[in-house]
């Protein structure tokens, strides 16, 4: 769909001008090397910078594939109409003054025109787009990036300028660059879809403040990340950041937890800084994914130890060498050298010893990737070492530490597509991203189970705020209970379900019932009536709230307490939560998240992810709890949150888990 945008044959720059420093001038200049035809459009001129100039796009005597619009705000709609009539299917609107300054109506008009003519529109309020493979630089940037295999999509145009400038200095190339602007028509999802098929792109880099249509994002990102890595910075994660992002682009302060989870579930590698974004993208480009088993080969003990620490810290493993590797190393290294991982070839090593050791290690089946560390000793020849490194067939990153003395070698490595870091920790961290990517990519999507639920019944139960009944309808275990409106009724219910019972106030206004003494446990027959009165009196006296009645519930035996929750994120939909229950849940925050729908194995992962999982497995001779029953509730809650959009929040807390089965003892919901 976007081929015409990046691979046009004929481009028109509308608003082209000979006045230097103007946007319409810079764009035209940037298109001088474009491998296609370029026309200028401006009624005032017949020629601009050597390009033939027409009064309107419609007067260009041939088909136009792409129009770049850099005209004053008041003319944008007319120009777009004219593009539509001409049949231009791809338009980049550079002009600002739309949604970003509160001009929603104008932007709506813009979208209307695009819909009417079927125009793919980038922007408005953007820097433009670049395809390095046909020299299409349709931006007003003063820098042109070198060709490369990374696609960069950014919501901030200014950031693109800085990144391109910096990348040029460091010899990093791009395949495509897209400045999203206001995302009136095309957004990150459309471009990710395009990069799926783009043969020039191997890694996709995203800078986003807000995500349009989180559900589609996840779907597209999942497909894309299966074939090529997607690395993203999502800014506006903290409260301060969210505040800044909302005033910058009107991006919604959705929950960062949801975004992080969405990235994880869709295989997007998250970077937290520009440095990480590049480190990670470059390593992914060079190494791809690997099994997480790292070998360190170094001529210097200190950096080797640092790298080993980093391996564990970033969730990687030091590979255990096969015996033939150790034998091999023994035959080439001095007797005092460390033959085990990390391999220390010693400070007196020359490039040859270092290179031979690398070769031996690279042949080890257990080794997934190598970190090659060198410090500038008198014996080491960096250029020769770089040659050895480039001959290695295994994923490898280098850490040639130093300044002037390593410059040439680093250049050589860069040319051979090997990434060098000046800090061993940074090298290992970058590798860890590649491992994470591999893990995420290898996850198979499963079929989600069907459940037999009477949705009409549930809909009416939701209206009645009968939360326990809603759970029952979804096959989620709850204790027997009833709601009493009078003390006598309470006794009737309790007689029916058997003693002892738990009694609690039913009132939409009392959220933390236990904290305010509105829950009584282990109530015997004689105490039911006085307890009813006590509870309603407490609620009224101390809280001055409206009380619907008193719930009389069978007293369940204590089990392991867990909590299962759901919060509907405005961007990504139902965010499910699992954690250790009890009153300290908010302190420990030992919780895991997934975005619904989830399968049984995803639910099991959620349960295993929290530290408290050990408690469920049983500690100090305890019998294990029924983890599968929790998994079952999670899957059912996931299904419920997918079936009923009106459920905005849900809190099953506590859920008692027993040796066999579990039971939801209390539930809260917020519905639309």
């Amino acid at each position: 769909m976007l081929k015409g945008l990046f691979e046009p044959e004929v481009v028109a720059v509308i608003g082209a001008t000979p006045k230097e420093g103007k946007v319409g001038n810079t764009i035209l200049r940037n298109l001088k090397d474009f491998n296609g035809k370029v026309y200028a459009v401006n009624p005032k001129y017949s020629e601009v910078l050597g390009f033939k100039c027409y009064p309107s796009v419609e007067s260009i005597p041939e088909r136009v594939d792409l129009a770049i619009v850099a005209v004053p705000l008041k003319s944008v709609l007319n120009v777009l109409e004219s593009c539509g009539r001409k049949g231009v299917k791809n338009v980049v609107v550079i002009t600002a003054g739309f949604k970003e300054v509160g001009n929603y109506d104008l932007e709506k008009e813009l979208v209307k025109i695009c819909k009417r003519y079927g125009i793919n529109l980038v922007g408005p309020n953007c820097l433009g787009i670049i395809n390095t493979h046909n020299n299409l630089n349709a931006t007003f940037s003063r820098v042109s990036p070198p060709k490369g295999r990374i696609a960069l999509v950014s919501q901030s145009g200014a950031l693109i300028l800085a990144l391109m400038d910096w990348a040029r200095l460091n010899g990093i190339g791009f395949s495509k660059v897209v400045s999203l602007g206001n995302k009136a028509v095309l957004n990150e999802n459309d471009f990710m879809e395009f990069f799926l098929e783009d043969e020039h792109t191997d890694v996709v880099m995203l800078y986003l403040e807000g995500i349009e249509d989180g559900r589609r994002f996840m779907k597209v990102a999942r497909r894309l990340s299966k074939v090529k890595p997607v690395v993203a910075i999502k800014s506006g994660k903290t409260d301060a950041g969210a505040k800044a992002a909302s005033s910058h682009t009107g991006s919604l302060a959705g929950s960062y937890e949801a975004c992080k989870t969405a990235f994880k579930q869709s295989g997007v590698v998250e970077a937290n800084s520009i440095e990480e974004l590049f480190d990670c993208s470059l390593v992914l480009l060079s190494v791809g994914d690997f099994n997480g088993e790292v070998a360190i080969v170094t001529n210097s003990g200190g950096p080797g130890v640092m790298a080993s620490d980093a391996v564990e810290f970033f969730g990687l493993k030091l590979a255990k060498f096969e015996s033939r590797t150790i034998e091999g190393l023994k035959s080439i290294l001095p007797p005092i050298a460390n033959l085990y991982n990390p391999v220390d070839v010693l400070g007196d090593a020359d490039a040859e010893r270092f290179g031979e050791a690398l070769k031996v290690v690279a042949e080890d089946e257990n080794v997934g990737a190598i970190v090659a560390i060198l410090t500038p000793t008198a014996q080491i020849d960096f250029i020769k070492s770089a040659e050895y490194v480039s001959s290695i067939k295994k994923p490898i990153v280098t850490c040639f530490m130093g300044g002037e003395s390593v410059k040439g070698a680093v250049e050589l490595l860069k040319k051979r597509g090997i990434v060098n870091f000046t800090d061993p920790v940074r090298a290992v961290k970058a590798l860890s991203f590649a491992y994470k990517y591999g893990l995420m990519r290898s996850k198979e999507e499963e079929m989600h189970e069907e459940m037999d639920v009477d949705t009409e019944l549930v809909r009416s139960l939701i209206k009645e705020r009968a939360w326990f009944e809603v759970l029952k309808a979804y096959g989620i275990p709850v204790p027997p209970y009833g709601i009493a409106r009078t003390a006598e009724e309470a006794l009737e219910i309790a007689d029916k379900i058997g003693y002892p019972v738990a009694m609690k106030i039913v009132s939409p206004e009392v959220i933390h019932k236990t904290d305010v003494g509105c829950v009584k446990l282990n109530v015997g027959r004689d105490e039911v009536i006085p307890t009813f009165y006590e509870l309603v009196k407490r609620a009224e006296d101390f809280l001055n709230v409206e009380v619907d009645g008193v719930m009389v519930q069978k007293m369940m035996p204590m089990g392991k307490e867990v909590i299962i929750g759901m919060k509907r994120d405005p961007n990504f939909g139902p965010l499910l939560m699992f954690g250790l229950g009890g009153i300290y849940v908010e302190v420990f925050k030992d919780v895991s998240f997934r975005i619904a729908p989830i399968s049984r194995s995803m639910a099991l992962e959620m349960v295993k992810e929290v530290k408290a999982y050990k408690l469920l497995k049983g500690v100090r001779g305890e019998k294990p709890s029924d983890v599968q029953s929790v998994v079952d509730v999670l899957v059912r809650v996931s299904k419920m949150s997918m079936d009923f959009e009106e459920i905005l929040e849900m809190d099953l807390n506590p859920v008692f888990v027993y040796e066999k089965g579990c039971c939801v003892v209390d539930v809260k919901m917020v519905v639309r």
Partner: protein
Amino acid sequence: MFVSSLDAYSGKSAVSIALGLLLKREGYRVGYFKPVGVGRYVGNELVEDDVITVSQTLKLEDDPSDVCPIVLDKPYLEFVLSSDPSKLRERVIEAYDRVKEGKDVVIVEGSLHYEMGKTIGLCDEELSSMLEKNVLMVVKYVDDYVIDRLLSAKLRFGERLKFVLFNQVYGYKTSYLKSLTERVLRSKGLEVVGMIPKDSLLAGTYLSELFEVLKGRYLVEPREDIIIEQLLIGAMSPQSALGYFRRAKNCAVITGGDRSDLITLALEVPNVKCLILTGNLEPPSILTGMAREKGVPIVLVPYDTLTTVELVERVFGRGRVGGKKKVERILELFESHVDFEKLMEVEHDRG
């Protein structure tokens, strides 16, 4: 019928509107009379809000000075000291005679509460007997003790007080009130004609009323006069705010104009109907544009949050009962919770 109440703001005007509309629907020529009103100055004019609202809703054309012959134009004590009770009574009777002309039924609404006007001989008990009306007592269910006050009122009104209408009843109390009606009230000669549940829409305040008291300016004008049922103060993180916004119903969010995170979030939640931004801090234009696009009005006020809340609370829960939405709801509640036939039987017997 004389509509009285134990407390101020109990819902008398709403009841008068419902009675008036239902009677009109049955073909009666209906009049409305409020002998003693409490005025307030709007510009140079002294107005009685109930009189305006009820007359407009029932589409009555009587002269407002007849509909409400006595309007307090000064503090009550000054009013008491400066008036001649006998002249006031005369004025009431004369005005009533004019209002009832050509009407089949005149609904009379008491002043703030049934005891008001005692000092000048114009409390509801005296007015109802002067005008020879049966009394319908509207009892706002503020707490359980209203029962005692109701029985004291019964002693004062005697035979005239026949009907009781409980208003703003909630939850499990309904069952108890039913038992109480059977065991106690009936034996004291009181007939409960209905129990109207608490309704947040009716308790809500029109944005125009809030706007009037806030003296701010609209950054985004409302498309229509909306009803605000709840107030929220946005001083928390967006993550905690989301839960509050979602739980609230038709709410106005009061927050600083610099809290763009909360503003964006509020605009995303349909329950948030209005934003009141404090400190005269205008939000970035991208956000005003977004609010305009979503039809969510923004009021900018010069005060800090605390002052704003204080101002808003002056009118909150005391809003007028007119307007299409509220009137529709009044009728709906009245028809499903009040025994209108029973009320009418007695009126017919009298007639």
